[in-house]
């Protein structure tokens, strides 16, 4: 009843953000995968704020519409504005056209350092079997997949083109949901999921097992490390078990670049630099993360798994750190392999190279 009355109130006041104390801009549609993470987080966050937070959805161009507007207008014009971004916007910064935003221009409120899990059919052998697979959301993890079933080869990125031409049937235009469905019907050999979706998927999939996790970004080393929720299943460890040596070479650097920008920035909240309200929202976030009830709620969002947050200055450090991975060679190789294997419209932008 209370919620219904709230809806009536919202309708009466036309739901404009003008009445809200904080407005969070999201470059996604309501109900999207990102939204399924964001809504429970905001629900918990509100408990520790005296002010309200209203979501303003601004979908379009895979988040670029909103983030470009945030970069050029919103962060200056809206003193109560926050922005959220996901992994696609993180990795798009590296190689997609018409990206005007730059995460270093804002202060991080909090970044939840996440992972991507990849599963496979139990009977499928990555070393000997061919692979049928497609998922337009997962460029990074598909690069990891390619490496894990091709091996180190001669270390040159061009060699992976030959390997994928021979062994990979990359099905184009597959979105995450249909790709998992195709796996369940036996049309694909592997599947993938972010922490929010993984447990749900595993509960539905009968013939499937975790193959590898990309790893959680470790701030102390500046690299993706073991995921404590799936110990021993880190990409590097699985690679070594499969091929008897550590992963290395141009493909590995390219993979780590694309993957880290996707996973480390998979769930991020931003505020304009110097905004006096930063202290309020950061304080609320810290309280939320210290509260056992909220912790339990957030754990539930990620299917029972726990992922660490880099808060405020810690988050800013993460952005600076991961940008160092964008060396000239790694960026060139990333763009090359995406064009050569995925046939995607990506660009090499020298401005993205670490200074």
């Amino acid at each position, binding site marked *: *009843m209370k*919620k*219904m009355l*709230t*809806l009536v109130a*919202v*309708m009466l006041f*036309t*739901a404009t953000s003008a009445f809200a104390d904080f407005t969070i801009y999201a470059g996604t*549609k*309501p*109900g999207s995968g990102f*939204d*399924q993470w964001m*809504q*429970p987080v905001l*629900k918990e966050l509100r408990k520790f704020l005296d002010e309200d937070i209203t*979501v*303003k*959805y*601004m*979908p*379009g*161009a*895979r988040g*670029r*519409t*909103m983030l*470009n*507007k945030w970069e050029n207008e919103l962060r200056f014009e809206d003193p109560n504005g926050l922005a959220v971004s996901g992994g696609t916007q993180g990795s798009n910064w590296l190689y997609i056209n*018409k990206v005007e935003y730059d995460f270093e221009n804002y202060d991080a409120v909090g970044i939840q350092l996440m992972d991507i899990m990849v599963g496979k059919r139990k009977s499928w052998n990555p070393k000997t079997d061919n692979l*049928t697979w*497609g998922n*337009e959301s997962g460029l990074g993890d598909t690069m990891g997949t390619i490496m894990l079933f091709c091996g180190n080869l001669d270390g040159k990125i061009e060699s992976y083109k030959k390997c994928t031409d021979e062994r990979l*049937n990359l*099905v*184009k*235009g*597959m979105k995450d*949901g249909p790709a998992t*469905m*195709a796996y*369940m*019907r036996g*049309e694909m050999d592997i599947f993938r999921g972010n922490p929010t979706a993984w447990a749900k998927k595993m509960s*539905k999939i009968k013939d499937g097992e975790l193959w590898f996790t990309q790893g959680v970004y470790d701030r102390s080393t500046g690299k993706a490390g073991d995921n404590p929720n799936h110990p021993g299943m880190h990409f590097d460890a699985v690679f070594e078990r499969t091929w008897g040596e550590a992963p290395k070479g141009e493909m590995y650097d390219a993979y780590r670049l694309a993957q880290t920008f996707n996973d480390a920035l998979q769930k991020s909240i931003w505020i304009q630099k110097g905004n006096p309200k930063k202290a309020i929202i950061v304080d609320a976030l810290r309280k939320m993360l210290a509260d056992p009830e909220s912790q339990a709620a957030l754990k539930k969002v990620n299917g029972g798994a726990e992922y660490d947050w880099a808060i405020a200055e810690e988050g800013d450090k993460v952005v600076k750190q991961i940008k160092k991975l964008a060396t000239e060679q790694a960026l060139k190789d990333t763009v090359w392999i995406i064009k050569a294997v995925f*046939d*995607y*419209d*990506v660009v090499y932008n020298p401005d993205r190279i670490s200074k």
Partner: protein
Amino acid sequence: MEYVLWCLAGTVYGIILGVVPLAGAGTAMLLLFSFVGFFAEMPYAGLVFLISVIASSSTADSYTSLLTGIPGSNTTAASIIDGHKIAKNGEAARAIGIAMADSTFNAIVFGILAFALLPFYAPIVYKFGLPELFMLMTLSIAVVAFIVTKNIWCSLFAIGAGSFLGLIGLDPHHAEPRFTFGTLYLEDGIPIMMMVGGLFGFPELMYGFRKDAVRPAPIKNYFTQLIQGWKDAVRLWKDSLRGGFIGFVAGMLPGVGPVGDMLAYGATVKAHPKEKFGVGNPKGLAGCEGANNAQKAGSLIPTVLFGIPASPFAAIFMAMCLGFGLDVGTPYMLEDKKFLWLLGSSFIGATIFTFIICTFTSKLLVKILEIPYWLYATLIMAIIVYTCQTYTGLYMDYLTLGGCTLLGCFCKHYGVSRPAILLTYIIIDKWENLGGQMMQVYDLPDLATRPLFLFLLALISFLVYKAITQKDRGIDYW
């Protein structure tokens, strides 16, 4: 208890919007688009609310058709032919009684038929691989093209326009912008709310301005006539059930659902060749009124099973459910018992609530029809604009809505099927995608071993052959 309240709230809202001339379920839901985010935390409450709006508006839209001769929505036009004559003959409440009983009966019968069987469809859905899904999409396009309108050129224009609009965005195979004219906004395609608002909402409401003001037929001896109407409906149960069945089947076929009531009316006339229709024959009303409700239940089946919305209202329903985080169109939802239970029970529950509410408030509801048309039409238009601009708040929201409205007005004026445009717009990129994926995963010899694929191929071939060779292709709806 919470869901019962949401059901009641949706019913009341649906009844009010249903009574508003030319609005109907689609417009009622479109106006709620900006509140999708509100239900993100309680998706099942959103589902109950939406289904209740659909069920109740499908019954309440009869008031307008019967009492004023203006369609309450685009799926109740057939009710006017005999129903409005009955009302003009001084038996308005009798017409309401027939319509209410007929709608309630068919909604319950075909609602149960549709929703109770949904869980059993789940294993079948898994049989639909990429080739079968591709053929199902092809079948949908073929049905839209060849059945809905008599004029094949109008159909082809509709398919062309829908295809062009549906293909705007990022080419899924190469992630390259396509028909976006260099704007980032269009890279995600044209939002469905602009399409529905522009193609249907605005043209219908603007069309209403051109109609002369009509005072609703007066209601006399309300309860006596109402009970007489109920008795008529019981007596004419065969006509009622036939109409419901036709509406139900039409509802499952993409593009055909909106004309289900006309098909049902035509079948009633054929079933009684010696009787005169169009003069206030209760059989004419009983034979078509419930088709509208059964069509709603039928249209939700392909929507829930395969994500193929068979009618414009189902397209909005699906988009809003996705907004709540409910993956309608995937087998996940068929395994979600709560989803299935609420889907069916809220449809039936809202139908019963509507019957009870309308029985006791008909005289009050008719007052809505006395409000000057320009007043609520302007209000609804303003809400549609507001709803659409909540998408991004950028000027492109207005431009896109304006473009879709121009197209909608053009189609209404020249008799081009707007449901065909909308459904093609929704289906075409999935069709393109599935076609490419099927060719990547399967070879021709593989396809030749799949019985379901071959059956669908034969069905499509037959449909195309009949469409080309048969002169009487279908009926017009635009």
